[in-house]
């Protein structure tokens, strides 16, 4: 611990600790009186000059989750060793390096990107200093997403109404939760113990009766176990769908998090992106872009669906599984092939819903031919469309 610095500040160590705790609380760590007492105790144990063990001890005391664990080194350095940080940092409750406008705008975009991943509310940049930058950006919300800095969605065209604000993302997440709750669960043949069940669990009842010398005093009950349906999302990311890909992937991610959906993207080939959807790194969009980059040679929907059925889904594609295809239906394969591919999915008992970005059902030949296999067509060009469709998705 840098005691000399503390003495220079002419403040009591406990006060200094309290303001450190305030900084930690600002960043979402739960540091109450108990934690502060423990932290002081650790200082007393190790002596105030032993920085390394104290740092480790404080980390163990103050952090309670993995997110906080990762946040710690930065916060610690910021408060106790501001001289090591680049940029001017004032040591108070609200510390942050000063940024110029460009950095602020970029940081805001990053923040929006990370906000799309509910697990990681990175609260760090949400200090008062960021606010003017937000205001600035609202004035020209029609401009491309990054000004001056590198854009992570550079490959895509300019999109109107595609600015994703944090409240949109939470609305989407809520919507996904509602729809997931409405997906009908499938009863299985298995039973599970439940306090208010419909059937007597004889084995458990007899086991309990031992306590009363064999008298059946305390019956145990069981109910049928239900399984939530498996959800597969296949998003078309070919050139023709370029402007919708961002929406599709956001929706897909929301369901990957809420309903544990498996997400695939396809153009001329099919690739699974579920792990990217779960991992909460800011680089996620770049990774998905990388997967989807470098094509433009059309869409092979039928071949992709076939690959999905035969290689990826296999046994998981059972009765009650839901397959959602996000596509406009323009296929470079022969139209009959799509019918065959969809038939194959239907044969496993899965139910297919087709989400199209147009208002009307696409007039693509292949889709018209295979209408019989598709349970429902749902338009999805915006979040509002998905909200409107939430009553028909079950």
């Amino acid at each position: 611990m840098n005691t000399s610095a503390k003495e220079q500040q002419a403040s009591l160590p406990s006060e200094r600790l309290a303001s450190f705790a305030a900084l930690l609380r600002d960043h979402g760590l739960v540091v109450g009186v108990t934690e502060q007492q423990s932290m002081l105790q650790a200082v007393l144990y190790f002596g105030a000059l032993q920085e390394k063990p104290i740092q480790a001890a404080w980390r163990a005391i103050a952090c309670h989750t993995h997110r906080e664990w990762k946040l710690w080194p930065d916060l610690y350095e910021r408060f106790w060793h501001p001289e090591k940080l680049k940029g001017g940092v004032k040591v108070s409750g609200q510390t942050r390096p000063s940024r110029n406008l460009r950095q602020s705008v970029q940081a805001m975009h990053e923040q929006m990107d990370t906000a799309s991943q509910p697990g990681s509310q990175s609260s760090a940049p949400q200090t008062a200093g960021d606010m003017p930058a937000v205001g600035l950006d609202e004035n020209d919300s029609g401009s491309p997403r990054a000004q001056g800095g590198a854009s992570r969605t550079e490959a895509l065209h300019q999109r109107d109404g595609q600015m994703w604000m944090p409240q949109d993302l939470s609305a989407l997440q809520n919507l996904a939760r509602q729809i997931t709750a409405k997906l009908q669960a499938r009863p299985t043949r298995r039973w599970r113990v439940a306090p208010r069940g419909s059937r007597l669990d004889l084995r458990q009842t007899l086991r309990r009766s031992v306590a009363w010398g064999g008298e059946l005093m305390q019956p145990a009950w069981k109910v049928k176990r239900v399984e939530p349906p498996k959800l597969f999302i296949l998003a078309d990311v070919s050139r023709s769908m370029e402007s919708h890909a961002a929406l599709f992937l956001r929706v897909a991610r929301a369901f990957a998090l809420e309903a544990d959906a498996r997400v695939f993207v396809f153009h001329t080939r099919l690739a699974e992106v579920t792990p990217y959807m779960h991992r909460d790194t800011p680089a996620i969009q770049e990774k998905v872009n990388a997967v989807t980059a470098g094509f433009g040679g059309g869409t092979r929907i039928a071949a992709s669906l076939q690959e999905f059925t035969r290689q990826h889904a296999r046994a998981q594609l059972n009765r009650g599984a839901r397959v959602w295809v996000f596509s406009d239906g323009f296929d470079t394969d022969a139209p009959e092939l799509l019918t065959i591919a969809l038939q194959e999915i239907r044969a496993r008992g899965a139910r297919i819903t087709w989400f199209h970005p147009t208002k009307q059902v696409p007039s693509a030949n292949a889709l018209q031919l295979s209408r019989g296999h598709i349970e429902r067509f749902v338009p999805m060009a915006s979040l509002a469309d998905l909200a409107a469709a939430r009553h028909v998705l079950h």
Partner: protein
Amino acid sequence: MKTPGPAELPASQERLLRERLQVSGYLADEDLSTTVWLASALQRPLLIEGDAGVGKTALATALAQSQNAPLVRLQCFEGLDLAQAAYEWNYGRQLMAIRLNESAPNGTGRVQEADVFSREYLLERPLLRAISQAGPCVLLIDEIDRADEAFEAFLLEVLAEYQITVPEIGTIRASHIPQVILTSNGTRELSDALRRRCLYHYLDYPSLAREIAIVKAALPHANSRLVEDAVQFVQRLRREDLSKIPGIAETLDWVRALFQMQHSHLPEDMASVLGTLGCLLKTREDRFSMSSDRLRQLVEGRRTVGVAENSNEQAKVAV
């Protein structure tokens, strides 16, 4: 707070703890040993999170071994209840005692209630066993995220007060506070209340040097070039896009397999490496993505330097 004397300085105690852990075959880094020491000093449970196979459970085993204390292990699972975790009456023995007493020839033997509800008819399950130990003991509550919320709530009382209440007997208080280690794989979010009771440590995959040291400690007879090459390969493999990243246990398995096959270094031909790769890659997709070409690339990540040097030397010779 009294200042500790020089003999019991925390720093030296902590170093001692680390050395003891090392003797028991667990190489802890400084932060971890500080945290473990602090947990025992503050008498708080220690919650350890991390991916599967980074040595969470091994820490508890090594800790028990280093202190010569018994390890009491509670493996959590869905539907774990009090009867399996804390205590249960031995109904069979109680009934038998009553029957025997009834049939005793001198009809005086009326059995008292207190007789059959005494400690000798109580089946100790892990939590009670840990609390009623006479000496120091390590209680490992493994994979707490698999138990349900109700059990977690019950655990709060045990971990805060170190006592268990049996209605028929009364409260059983720990004479020696056990050192509690909880592990979690993060399959479910634990409650804030439980998290706040515990010290927290996130175990990550070890660095190259530390992993080499770990493997060497576990397999002292293996050729050190084999160990270094293999660990380097595993470290590189972890950076690949795998669905199940191999942990330390997998590395140990793999090096052990190579050692048993009497390799003194990583074999040149990839077919024999592919055969042993089952020790490292545990899912079909991962196994599928590692073709022998990809494998060669990964292994040669180390060798490209050598090749370049060689070609340089050859160039020099040619000059």
